[in-house]
């Protein structure tokens, strides 16, 4: 089966670089799965879980946002913050929620909507870990 090159980088380090068969990505406008021969796509991420399937191995990463660049041969996730799901605890997620709430303070109109959505998305992470 054709594979797709998956890279996960955060500003501070490179977390993963592997050949994967499919990658589940929480896009800003909805979840999608990137596989080989995917159309070129550039989208932002919402807080969520990225699931990378390589053969029988499944690795999951929690990201708090960022963006992803998908082409037919590669998918590069540039995450704000990312860590393997196994290392993520409820405390860490609560920290993210708090940060999102702090950022939401004082926003109005469309900005408030974005901030509120971010809080909701982050809270939804709690159920996923």
């Amino acid at each position, binding site marked *: 089966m054709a594979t797709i090159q998956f890279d996960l980088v*955060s*500003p501070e380090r490179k977390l993963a670089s592997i050949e994967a068969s499919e990658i589940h990505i929480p896009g800003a406008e909805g979840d999608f799965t990137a596989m080989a021969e995917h159309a070129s*796509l550039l989208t932002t991420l919402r807080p969520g879980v990225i699931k990378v399937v390589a053969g029988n191995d499944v690795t999951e990463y929690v990201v708090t946002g960022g963006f992803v*660049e998908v082409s037919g041969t590669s998918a590069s996730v*540039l995450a704000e913050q990312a860590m393997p799901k196994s290392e993520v605890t409820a405390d860490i997620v609560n920290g993210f929620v708090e940060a999102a709430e702090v950022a939401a303070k004082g926003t109005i109109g469309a900005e408030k909507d974005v901030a509120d959505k971010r809080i909701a998305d982050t809270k939804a992470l709690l159920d996923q870990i």
Partner: protein
Amino acid sequence: MPNLKDLKTRIESVKNTRKITKAMQMVAAAKLRRAQEAAEAGRPYADRMNAVMANLAGASAGAEGAPKLLAGSGDDKVHLLVVATSERGLCGGFNSSIVKMARAKAAELLADGKTVKMLTVGKKGREQLKREYADIMIDHVDLSDVKRLGYVNAQGIATDVVDRFNAGEFDVATIFYNKFETVMSQIPTELQLIPAKFEAQEGAEAPFYEYEPGEDEILAELLPRALATQVFTALLENGASEQGARMSAMDNATRNAGEMIDKLTIVYNRSRQAAITNELIEIISGAEAL
């Protein structure tokens, strides 16, 4: 001729200095390795971000309603100089070279009749600049409590700069830092932050992307982040440069201390021999007189 005891004390003192500089050199070497690794680790993100931004910005540049961060405020009267230096001294010409460059730029802008504002990052640059430019310094970022430079530090600086830009405090922002070349050479560099500039890598083809949500939304969201990334890269380069500069400065100091010890030891031995010869002459002439 200095007496023997003084010489002995002096030699001991220089030896102690040499021990200290040697230790500092070794510490700097270890820190340099870490700083270099950090700079290395941040590169994939920065490169990718730059490539994407070059692609996006190329499409939107000159278009109506391009984001202000990219297009600028349409003016270039007020300049903000972000001067990034180190928190600690004893690193040779590291800080002076950055400050010198910032100073030259400030003088040039002032001569052109522009308004200049300054934001300093790191204590050492502030100390050097405040005598001359105290009245135009708008803020200072203190990183002395930061053990390990993180993206959040850069993000804090970038957010502050963007907020000030949106508040109309300045039109153009430039950051000054030292680019790490080798341990021996660090290159003072200026990088324009606002209006943002992204250089496309040569030979990289620009694929046609579908954008989700729209191109403009993505651009608007990514611009502040790209800016933070540029600041982060600058700070990482600065960190590696600082340790490199300190290492070579301390290496020189150690070598100089060694040379000094050699010279002092020769003087010491000569005076000792002279003293012995003197005593002998006194004894012999005393014996002859009998």
